[in-house]
């Protein structure tokens, strides 16, 4: 609710990129604040290493800034960021055998009161999911992407994304049920 109310400007992502290109350095700050949390969570959940995820996020933003915003007229900047970050994470995975060192943490969002223990359990359970199911849940729940956008990003059908999401939620229910 009221998610798009932001200080700095009501500019679109592309508008912010254009402003940054024109010399307004604060425009990048607004863009960073819009997506850094969810992108970092996504990267961390992909590579299982907090430090590596931070490096990938930095690389991701630098690659975005290198692009000409005029050429992004028909692309969502958010989806583009996820696409860049996903490719970076996959490249990293191909370069070396990644081992799970850590998993990203969740915090309460719009609840009355803070259920710290529950959110810790959810973070852990998310990491116990098969990678493709975890990716779908993370993109849907924390990337605010539609099933269609996720399907386009990862190159599978929307029906596949939906079924992965359903299985993931059911698996989470089982995992969290054991902790209840």
């Amino acid at each position, binding site marked *: *609710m*009221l*998610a*798009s*109310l*932001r*200080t*700095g400007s*009501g500019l679109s992502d592309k508008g912010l990129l254009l402003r940054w290109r*024109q*010399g307004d*350095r604060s425009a*990048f*700050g*607004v863009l*960073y*604040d*819009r997506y*850094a*949390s*969810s992108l*970092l*969570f996504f990267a961390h959940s992909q590579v299982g290493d907090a430090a590596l995820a*931070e490096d990938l*996020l*930095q690389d991701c*933003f*630098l690659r975005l*800034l*290198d692009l000409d915003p005029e050429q992004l007229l028909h692309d969502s900047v958010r989806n583009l960021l996820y696409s860049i970050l996903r490719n970076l994470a996959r490249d990293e995975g191909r370069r070396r055998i990644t081992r799970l060192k850590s998993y*990203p*943490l*969740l*915090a*309460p*969002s*719009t*609840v*009355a*009161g*803070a*259920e*710290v*223990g*529950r*959110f810790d359990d*959810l973070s852990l359970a998310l990491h116990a999911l098969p990678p493709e199911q975890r990716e779908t*849940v993370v993109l849907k*729940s*924390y990337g605010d992407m539609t099933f269609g956008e996720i399907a386009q990003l990862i190159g599978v059908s*929307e*029906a596949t994304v939906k079924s992965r999401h359903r299985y993931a*939620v*059911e698996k*989470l*229910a089982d995992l*969290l*049920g054991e*902790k*209840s």
Partner: protein
Amino acid sequence: MNVEKVESLLDRSRPAPPPSDLRRRIFEAADRKFPAAPLPSRKPRLVEVMTVAASLLMLIATVSWLLREAPPASSPGAQEAGQPFEDRKMMSQFPGGEVSGFTWSPDGKHWGCAVKLVEGDTRMAVVIDGKKEKEYIAVSPPVFGADGVYVYGAQDPADGMLLIQNGVVQKGFEAFQAVSFSPDGRRLAYAARKDGLWFAFVDGKRSGPYDSLDDILWSPDGTRVALVASLGADWCCVVDGKKGEPFDYISHLRFTPDGKTLAYVAREGSEHLVVGTTAGQDYDAVGPPAFSADGSRVGHRASSQGESFVVVGPPGKQAKVSDAYDEVGSPVFSRDGKVWACRVREKGVPKEAILVGREILMQYVKRVEGKETSFEQLESHAQPGESFESVSDPVVNPDGTLVAYAAGKGSRKYLVVGSERTLKFSLIDRIAFGPDGRKLAFRAGQYGKQLVVAGDSRSDEVDEIVTGPVWSKDGRKVAFTARTGAELWSRVLEVK
């Protein structure tokens, strides 16, 4: 834990903020890679000088207007959810960044929300009536009681989790949850964890401990409090301190509309709905129960062997009333419960439709050895409507003669009333029948802007309809909260 609980938990969570030094690191890297080019300097042209002068005059006029003595606030005609029926600007410049959980107090005199502070990077604060409160690492949106009383949760690096009531901090607990005021806003209940054990606090009185405490629910008249809690492996409902029957797990706690009876979904291997002391049939999974306004019918989705279907009937006598589908939404009822509707996803095809069920008194004739006897039987007949790529959850008018929902493909959404497609927008949601049960109000979106449509009336287009639309009791107006840029407005639309 069931699927609904998981979805709720996912909805209520967000990624933890990134480390504060990461922002600086990335900004420095960006500055190194893309050094800022100095902006070309040139002499201003006459038209630009004139424009700057005009802007200064406008700024002085605006500041004078803002500093003037505020007129006495008109008495808001507070309606459902506290949405006031008054046209006024609430704020000119919002004091923060991303906002969540915007809410009105029940009397419509106060408003609040949680704000992520862009300048502070990872800091958040609650804003009440436009004033920013103390900053924390994380805050939950405020919950209002009566007379402007409000509470919210906050995370402090030194003191841990805090519960804050009108600026007064409650310390010493590891976590809080299920914070809620009684319907009259006079009594406060919440769950708090200390040394790994959960306690319930109602009017400041402690009960417990419990191993887990999932939910706290006030009865509609505010005289009773029900908890869902666990001790050891058993979960049970606790009503006014008395423990109920133990189960493997309990979810979806509800009071019946008259507030006299408690209903919940119990798991004991399989799941079933319990209303009072009556247990419904067992299924693999049972969705949240919904009651008709008169309490005569209850319904829920259920699934067995991978198929989902609708279960409806008088409490304690509910039965399967639909075919099997891939997915089924929660049913909604007409006032007398004789008409119900819900969203269904068809088996094996990516299509959704609204299923409408009606109770019909069937007359049968039975022949036994040439002798005919007639008898009547009440039956529920369900019929799916037109299929779409997606449909919203439906709304049913009180007399059950109209069902409305949003349906469409991709970004094209139609308002469907009965079986007719009517208006088309890119966004249609928050659909509500007016008091006459005929006119509809909803939030609509087109070309990146939002508006409220009510009957034949349309509001101005704004950046965002934050809350509402809410119908007035006489059905002549709808009220809503709107944002344009950083301005917040309380708005009223006359309904034609």
